């Protein structure tokens, strides 16, 4: 049956990590697997197993938990596991003996965790974290504990030395292969998994113990020397992997090589001595301040002096005669002067006649005086109080050589009754 969650659900960034984890588990399970399909296809199932373990640890009574209780405890879990998925995983874990009935009776529905299952889940977690490198550390620790006994067993010691040497060789060869053909992302992943300190020290300590406690036992000394060689080979591959990561990641400013937590930790806790290791090769490189005359004057203009208090503009001088509003009177006087000037112009154009065609006069005046004449006579024609009418003909006179290039003919006529508004006006 297919799992509800499928590989790739975690997003692109987690794909590689998930794939590596899955490959590790498959390899881990291979020695005891019945067939190639024995290992689940998604790493999430291991987290679910750990979550089930936690439920048993926190909620279990003296006689274990029922399936329903486990399901209820995982309702609304943060990971979004469905009831169906949890139920199916419970069935698998029960079938394989990870969970076993409290009483070995058929149809008994209370379960407890078998301790070996707990060890498997924890091992799977370690495998997920460091790809099995932790097992190497445990192996070295166990070997040391054998040597630390008051009467160490030479056969057991030899077995451990050989196991450690073989394990180191396997890891070293895997690293060597990744340095040769691995992608930068795979190398970074491996580099993170192998970033443990103290292998060299542990192997050297082990070698020293062999020398102290089994001096003259050729097989053990030989195995210890082989372990040293394996460790050196492993270290060489580790250095080669780190060199390659530095070489490739530096050019692309790839910061995936460390975890977010490590950078964050440095940002919060780093002191000046640590943080000032950054930028020792940097030199200030800024252009000089540029002065642009036009921009400078624009800026200066924006700082024109201004008062914070609103002040009324000064009053104009009082009218000498003291009558009414001087400004209005001056405007009326100006209007009268303009009207008088226009009347004089009209009389000059009519030359004593009642009606006159202004076309010739306009051509004679030329541009722009013609425009001024037209404006004045039209204003006169529009004024109901004035005894003049202006008629603008429809025909357009065009002459590129003339003093006025385009012109409508104008006729000016003196009307007999200036006081009659209906008889005045402009005919267009």
């Amino acid at each position, binding site marked *: 049956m297919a799992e509800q969650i499928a590989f790739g659900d975690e997003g692109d*960034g987690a794909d590689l990590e998930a794939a590596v984890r899955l490959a590790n588990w498959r390899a881990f399970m291979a020695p005891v697997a019945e067939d190639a399909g024995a290992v689940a296809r998604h790493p999430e199932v291991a987290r679910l197993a750990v979550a089930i373990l936690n439920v048993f640890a926190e909620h279990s009574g003296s006689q274990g938990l029922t399936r329903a209780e486990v399901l209820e405890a995982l309702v609304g879990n943060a990971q979004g596991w469905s009831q169906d998925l949890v139920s199916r995983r419970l069935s698998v874990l029960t079938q394989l003996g990870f969970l076993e009935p409290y009483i070995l009776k058929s149809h008994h529905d209370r379960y407890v965790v078998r301790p070996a299952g707990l060890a498997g889940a924890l091992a799977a977690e370690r495998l997920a974290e460091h790809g099995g490198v932790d097992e190497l550390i445990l192996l070295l620790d166990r070997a040391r504990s054998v040597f630390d006994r008051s009467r160490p067993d030479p056969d057991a010691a030899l077995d451990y030395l050989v196991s450690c040497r073989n394990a180191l060789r396997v890891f070293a060869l895997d690293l060597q292969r990744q340095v040769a053909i691995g992608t930068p992302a795979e190398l970074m992943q491996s*580099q993170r998994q*192998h*970033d443990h*300190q103290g292998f060299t020290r542990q192997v050297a300590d082990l070698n020293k113990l062999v020398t102290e406690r089994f001096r003259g036992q050729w097989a053990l000394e030989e195995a210890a020397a082989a372990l040293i060689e394996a460790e050196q080979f492993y270290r060489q591959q580790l*250095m080669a*992997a*780190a*060199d390659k*990561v*530095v070489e490739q990641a*530096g*050019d*692309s*400013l*790839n*910061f*995936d*090589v*460390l*975890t*977010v937590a490590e*950078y*964050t930790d*440095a*940002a*919060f*806790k*780093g*002191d*000046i001595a*640590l*943080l*000032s*290791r*950054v*930028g*020792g*090769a*940097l*030199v*200030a*490189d*800024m*252009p*000089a*301040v*540029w*002065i*642009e*005359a*036009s*921009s*400078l*004057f624009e*800026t*200066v203009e*924006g*700082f024109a*002096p201004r008062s914070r208090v609103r002040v009324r503009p000064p009053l104009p001088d009082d009218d000498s005669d003291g009558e009414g509003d001087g400004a209005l009177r001056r405007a009326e006087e100006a209007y009268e002067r303009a009207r008088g000037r226009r009347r004089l112009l009209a009389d000059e154009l009519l030359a004593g006649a009642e009606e006159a065609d202004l076309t010739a006069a306009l051509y004679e005046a030329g541009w722009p005086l013609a425009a001024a004449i037209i404006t004045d006579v039209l204003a006169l024609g529009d004024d109901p109080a004035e005894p003049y009418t202006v008629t603008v003909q429809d025909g357009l006179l065009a002459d590129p050589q003339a003093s006025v290039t385009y012109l409508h003919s104008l006729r000016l006529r003196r009307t007999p009754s200036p006081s009659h508004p209906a008889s005045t006006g402009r005919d267009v």
Partner: protein
Amino acid sequence: MSSAGPEQDGRDHEVAFQAALLLGRLRVCQVVPAAVPGPVLAAAAAAAARVGRRLVRITGGPQALDALVLGWDGDSAPSPNPSLLASRLGLPPIPTLVWAVCLRAAWPEPERAPFLGLPFQRTRILELCVGLGADRESVERALDRTLPSAGLITASASELRLGPAVAALPGTTVEGLRRGHHLLPALAEDGSPAGPGRSQPASAHTVPVDEDQVPDTFDHYAVRSAVATLETSRRTVPRGDLPALTDPAVRALAEAALLPCGRQLMQTADGNWTTGYTDPAADALVQEGTGTLTDTERAVLALVLLRTVAIPRARGRHRHSRWTGEPHSVTLQELATNREIPKVAINAALRGLRAAGLVAETTTGRYIPGPALERLPEHRSALLWEDLILVGRPDGHLAAAIVRRRDRTPAQPPTGDRIHDNEETDRP
């Protein structure tokens, strides 16, 4: 005779290197002491002339100056093209106003050269600027920090004078200022007594260039124009703004012209153009502590890069492989969550980093990696990446690999103590 050739070549090489270093110092400090050997001065003047610059020697004055600044020759001053003007480093409005007032006070007779000009009183400049509506504190900051750091004014005792950067202004800029001289805000009345203090005993003259050392090529205008644009721009220049550089011949000429100045032409991954220090020049500047950062500045730069580059990238939130151009930014408050560095020290260091172009401030007051990081060649950028890895996990395998690599490479820059000449003020 047989050994004279290589010895001479060695001497020439050393002189050329010292000349490049001198021009590098001028790029960082804007003003350097003129106490350099004659051949080095001549070589620097020739190298500067190849990229349209002129070496100006300032002598005399009340402070008995003997200093060098880097100006522009008449033909090659950067274009006043508005699209390029925006990319240059200008003064904010209030420092612009303050400098305009200073310029007018020091330069009452526009028919004369503005440098060195007359001395002027700080209090009178302050009063006038505040009277024009500028904030008093901002004016004081401009007089005490911004303008002196840009070399636009210098302070001695109670009086101020125009700074050496004024002697380096392009002729076109001086002409523009001369035409608008009447628009510069003038002090109400010059109350300072006439006398020896008002004389202009200083002189600024261009260091003569041996024309034979400056090859006159057909494309020299295009080359000098491109270099002027690149060297005055704060950021990388879009390739569309420098079409001349698409011609391999012009590009080769530009590269050849920049090299004696200790600079190199670089193209970013997206095809934009910029310039940066050559490796020998950068190494030498680091070695002598010119333009380098203080311990605190380096630590704060590390904090900025950790929070704006390393952590987002470790989370997979990035689109390219550059230090700049991503939207991640950090505030002073966030930087101050570091438990070891006081907030006041972080704030002061940020000022220095901004002046060096290594950190920039957004309009909303957030900090981002600065434009000077775009001027780093690839391997120097990788060095900075390595620094951050060393900080993130100082005892990891990658850190060990980085240390091994650096041990194999001679002449690594010092990561220790000092620093720039005047820690109290921002550098230009």
